[in-house]
């Protein structure tokens, strides 16, 4: 049986999509169990001069404890299981966009205690601040696209 079919004029590999969905599910579960989905917990981690809560440093450390050896092993393979090649970011040099983008992101993260993953994972809470954040985040991404990417 050919497991490649076409959805929305796109060739898709259904077997791979099951794994991608599972990956999303585990990611969302991890954000929830770790407490990263809770902006108050994130602010507690970022508030190093207040009642500092180091929990989220452990989230990052234990995440890296899996990805550092995992990526090292996987990237030695010729190709991933269900794709012809790896799709990795091409840029290698440090530029002003990288640094200014990270500064802007850091300001937003500190203001709300939300970054993209936890914000999206939290939308089913229907919390008005989370929903406003997500709507504005999508608008910010589109703004970047129309201002800086859409022109050739």
């Amino acid at each position, binding site marked *: 049986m050919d497991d490649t079919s076409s959805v929305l004029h796109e060739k898709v590999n259904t077997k791979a999509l099951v794994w991608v969905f599972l990956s999303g599910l585990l*990611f969302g579960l991890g954000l929830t169990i770790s407490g990263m989905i809770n902006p108050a917990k994130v602010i507690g981690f970022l508030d190093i001069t207040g009642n500092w809560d180091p929990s989220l440093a452990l989230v990052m450390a234990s995440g890296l404890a899996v990805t550092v050896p995992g990526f090292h092993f996987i990237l030695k393979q010729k190709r991933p299981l269900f794709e012809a090649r790896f799709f990795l970011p091409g840029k290698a040099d440090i530029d002003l966009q990288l640094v200014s983008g990270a500064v802007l992101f850091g300001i937003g993260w500190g203001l709300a205690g939300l970054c993209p993953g936890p914000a999206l994972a939290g939308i089913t809470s229907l919390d008005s601040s989370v929903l406003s954040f997500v709507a504005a985040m999508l608008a910010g991404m589109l703004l970047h696209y129309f201002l800086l990417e859409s022109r050739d």
Partner: protein
Amino acid sequence: MDYFTPISAIIGGLLIGVAATLMLWTHGRITGISGIVSGVLIPNNTGKVWRTCFLAGLVLGPVGYIAISGQGLTIVTQASPLLSVVAGLAVGFGTRLGSGCTSGHGICGIARLSKRSFLATAVFIVTAMITVYITQHAMGGS
């Protein structure tokens, strides 16, 4: 420090690491949430199907947690909806300009030993800490 929750932080972090590793292993992609979301949003982009599948899982993960544990989500927001809009705009624009967020740079990029990701992660964590210092302490907070 009764608010320090090392066990759940480590279990959650391991799950996040496994998720990102599975994605690279099976599909050859980096699990960067800002990149995945914007890839769905941006017109005429390919790869919308797998990105939508990932996002469906991401949103349903917490729902599954509620179903299994019987507990609700703990989401406490201090920022007003207006401040959340300002923060959301900065995060949306900034993650595109800086090519990634906590997941793409912090979990995946560092694992690839990318110097761009090491720098970006250091910059956004320090900037976020300074922002929290200003809003929680310098501006008449507690």
